[in-house]
């Protein structure tokens, strides 16, 4: 087996250099959020972690992440104790910035390791494409923008996810995969979106006999059950013991938020809102009733609770019903065909369903789709066809996260670099499919990718030159609607491929 170059380690070194250079870059409030958590976990007893509210950025991640922050705070003490004081709101000495940014970079080692394992454990015939995929994830512009400019720890968390997905490949390590996923859930509960796929896969492939679905493998079931219970016990047990579960859950699931996040995530609801805005202009002419109370929120822009002027309002229950039903569809297939690749496909589709139909989805959640999908993108050309618009849309939709002039070239140029490089490499590596390709999908994706260039240009420099600060929501709306089209398109494409292969 020929060695594959550049190796994960080599790539990691170079990309780390870039990440370090990004230290002084713009950082969002998430930086202060994480600093505050360092302070909380360091200076308060565990009992009051989920009650502390000096800062508006209260602890709203599950306990394992809090433990992780506690661990980081132990070293932070020696760097700058100032960042560990709860009342030091907005504290950002250069030591603090260096330290927090370095922890993100260090935590990315988990991702690099996971990708290394992923390449090692993929079958020799597909090792070359696995290598390309792994490098593409390691260099992902989404992770660079979100983690190293905006500030979060996604690289680390997705590293655990990939490790867990990879362990789920073989019967012998499947238990470990389940364990890691449980740990991941206790770090960031957004991964609950993917949990149905795990549940069905582990149930069918691990707890039921491979030959007959009616024969239960009790040994496996008990082992898996107790492991998961143990993990959750370690995470939530103390809080349950202190009777704080209700408070913890209230922090984790704040239901008071609106349907759409401040910037619309590119999902079905973005298209729905966009239609509503368009109808609002058209409505007087065709005589549709307009909800006057909603007009205020329309003119206010995009912040806060979304209510619709023409179209009916959306109920949280509806979003859950939609999400679950689309998830169930793909899980049925997984149940009857519990192979690893179907499992990854199901994870991807669970991500899609919750991203597209979920309540108050963040645009950052697109990673839930992109990363599992990447693992399948090179299966054959049909998968790649569906991946392309997602790769463009998913990354373009993240652009509004970073709006400062100095970082503008970094986010756009780096993303363009990644797209040119990997769409090209993938195109060369993806094998021809044994089944016919989906009719117009390729043309659609080419056209779609082409549109992105004028759109990016319009949305940042041109709009500002023409309109100044007015109509700020227009470019944002264009970006989310454009990206929504891409994400929905790739979802349809992927679903077809998933159900027909």
């Amino acid at each position, binding site marked *: 087996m020929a060695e594959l170059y550049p190796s994960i380690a*080599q790539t990691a070194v170079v990309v780390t*250099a870039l990440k370090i*250079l990004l230290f002084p870059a713009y950082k969002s409030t998430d930086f202060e959020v994480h600093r505050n958590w360092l302070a909380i976990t360091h200076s308060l007893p565990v009992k009051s972690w989920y009650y502390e509210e000096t800062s508006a950025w209260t602890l709203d991640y599950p306990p394992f992440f809090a433990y992780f922050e506690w661990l980081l705070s132990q070293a932070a003490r020696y760097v700058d104790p100032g960042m560990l004081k709860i009342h030091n709101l907005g504290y950002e000495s250069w030591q603090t910035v260096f330290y927090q940014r370095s922890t993100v970079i260090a935590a990315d080692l988990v991702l690099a390791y996971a990708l290394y394992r992923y390449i090692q454990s993929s079958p020799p015939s597909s090792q070359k494409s696995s290598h390309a995929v792994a490098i593409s994830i390691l260099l992902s512009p989404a992770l660079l923008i979100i983690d190293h400019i905006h500030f979060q720890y996604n690289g680390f968390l997705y590293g655990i996810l990939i490790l867990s997905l990879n362990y789920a490949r073989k019967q012998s390590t499947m238990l470990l995969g389940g364990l890691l996923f449980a740990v991941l859930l206790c770090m960031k509960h957004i991964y609950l979106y993917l949990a149905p796929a795990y549940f069905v896969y582990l149930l069918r492939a691990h707890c039921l006999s491979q030959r007959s679905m009616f024969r239960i493998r009790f040994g496996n079931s008990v082992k898996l059950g107790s492991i998961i219970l143990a993990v959750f016990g370690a995470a939530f047990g103390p809080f349950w013991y202190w009777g704080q579960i209700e408070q913890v859950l209230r922090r984790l699931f704040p239901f008071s938020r609106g349907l759409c996040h401040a910037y619309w995530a590119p999902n079905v609801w973005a298209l729905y809102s966009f239609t509503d805005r368009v109808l609002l202009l058209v409505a007087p002419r065709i005589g549709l009733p307009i909800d006057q109370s909603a007009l205020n929120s329309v003119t206010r822009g995009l912040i806060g609770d979304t209510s619709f002027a023409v179209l009916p309002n959306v109920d949280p229950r509806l979003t859950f019903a939609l999400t679950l039903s689309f998830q169930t569809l793909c899980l049925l297939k997984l149940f009857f065909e519990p192979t690893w690749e179907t499992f990854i496909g199901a994870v991807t589709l669970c991500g899609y369903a919750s991203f597209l139909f979920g309540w108050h989805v963040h645009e950052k959640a697109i990673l839930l789709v992109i990363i599992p999908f990447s693992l399948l993108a090179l299966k054959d050309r049909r998968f790649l066809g569906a991946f392309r618009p997602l790769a463009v849309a998913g990354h373009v939709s993240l652009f509004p996260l970073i709006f400062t002039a100095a970082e503008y070239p970094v986010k756009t140029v780096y993303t363009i670099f990644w797209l040119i490089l990997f769409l090209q490499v993938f195109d060369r590596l993806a094998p021809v499919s044994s089944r016919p390709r989906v009719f117009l999908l390729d043309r659609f994706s080419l056209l779609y990718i082409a549109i992105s260039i004028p759109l990016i240009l319009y949305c940042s420099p041109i709009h500002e030159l023409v309109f100044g600060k007015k109509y700020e929501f227009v470019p944002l709306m264009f970006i989310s609607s454009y990206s929504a089209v891409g994400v929905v398109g790739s979802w349809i494409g992927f679903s077809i491929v998933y159900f027909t292969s």
Partner: protein
Amino acid sequence: MSSSGTPHKSRKKKKDPSQTMNTSNEVSLSESKASAQTPGFPLVAFFWPARKSTSQWVILPLVLIIVGLFRWCTGLWGYSGFQTPPMHGDYEAQRHWMEITTHLPICQWYFYDLQYWGLDYPPLTAYHSWLLGKIGSLIDPSWFALDASRGVEQPLLKVYMRATVVVSEYFSYIPAIIILNRKLAHIRGVNEWESSIALVAILMQPATILVDHGHFQYNTVMLGFVLASVSCMFSDHPIWACVFFVSALCYKQMALYYAPAVFAYLLGVCLLPNLHLGRFIAIALVTLASFALIFAPMLLGSLYDAHRGISPPLSITDREANPLFATILPYIDAQSLLYPLTLQLTQIVHRVFPFARGLFEDKVANIWCAIHTLHKLHEYPIPLLQRVSSFATLIAILPAGMIISLFPRKELLPWTLASTAWGFFLCSFQVHEKSVLLPLLPMTILLGGDGGLSVEMRAWVGWANMLGVWTMFPLLKRDELRVPYYVISLLWAYLLGLPPTSLDLYIGKRAARSGMRLSTQLLHLTFYAAMATWHLIEAFVPTPKAKPDLWVVLNVIVGCAGFGICYLWCTWQLILRSGVMEEWFDFRAQMQEKEVKAGKEEKKPLLPPTKGKRATPPRDAKGAKMAKKS
């Protein structure tokens, strides 16, 4: 260095046809057993997937994006003079020039408030500043408001200024390097893939990135002109070479470091092998015309201003400060047209060449500063020091100049440029630590040539660059650029497999096969060790109270020694590669023969045959490559 001392006839190339790939740098492929090829150093690994049949037109945009990203991200850090009123630094100087050129009549550019960053670069810089100032004023006029804008530090202005450096570089330095690199590869028969690798190595050169995008300057524009000029020499267009070189001189006077080499080469091209009088006259005329063209807006503008009744604000002190004009003044009528012209010209010359300043500025790793630490030089009168330093410089550049004018061959150009630039850097008057970019550039260009990525060449070029960037550490530290310094220079070292990150070049099988002398290896490793130790000391040990500059002085002494070695190496390589030694031995042998067979006729004249022999290999390589292509 001796084994590969006889250049461009490398044994390596003979192996080529038997190998699957055409490569003169076979070392970059390391193990020659076809089955187990591995990348020789990390940079090669990144190009590994592209080694078969990937067009350069795919690689090039990606390379340009990546090197651009690293430049831009370096720019996110501090710059010279950030938050250090009242004078700030180079960033403020450049911004100030945009301010004065956009607001003042052209005749006052070189006179306005000279105490506060008066314009002291040649006119092309002034025009460039004017253009950038005009464009910037469209975005926000307050950035360049006359006087009111002094010391502004807005984040958006910083973005604009950084962007101007990047854009200027992408219009000058980068296309020039790409073209020159391709020419070099073409002439020397380096394949496209390796040429791309060399391109990245050259573009990621740490010193240039850190000075221009970190510290803040526009050196790359001048360097771009110089490279364009060298490109033209490579493609036998000496006329255009003159135009570009004059542009470089008129952008930044520092290009003078290269001037003797360029002059000697062009002279050689005119005189040898046969006398080209037409070419000589054309070169002279074009050079004059280029100067005239570049100075024309300045001079015509001053005439027009004089006609409008605007005159430069020349105070008495300035008049005294400008001795050139003071000597000419008695001979000119204040009413004549000549008056504003001479005033302007003498003022530019006076501003651009500040002879009144000291022997060296700050702490710079050249011989004067090194000697100064042992024996104080400021006891001597400045004119004497000037004369001594001019004489020393002349001696230092003499060998290279003589060789290139006797053997005006293209492939010797980078060596000559490097040798003369080192000579200037080490011996001349008024040297800045940033000037080390000039000798480093032609050395770095060599990476793109024949065997440029071989162990020995990488070792030398890498060593010189690491040393160069290391001597700039005190400067970069002042600008709060420590982190980018470590990141950018270590990244380059990593990509090229150089010592702080890897010892492959010096220890191990490949190093043993490279034929590098043990003494060279020891020399390099000693310097690397010294640099590393110095960093540790500088970071953790406070300087003794009596000598606050001790660490910087140590840096200067070590750096000076290293640069001296670089100079000697470049000059020695030039001598070896020019074939002057062989000719000398031939000559001596013939003389002896003559003595033995006294009275007999000489068989052949001295020069031509050897010249012919020497000129063939490049053409062979070219031919071989073309044959392979077809």
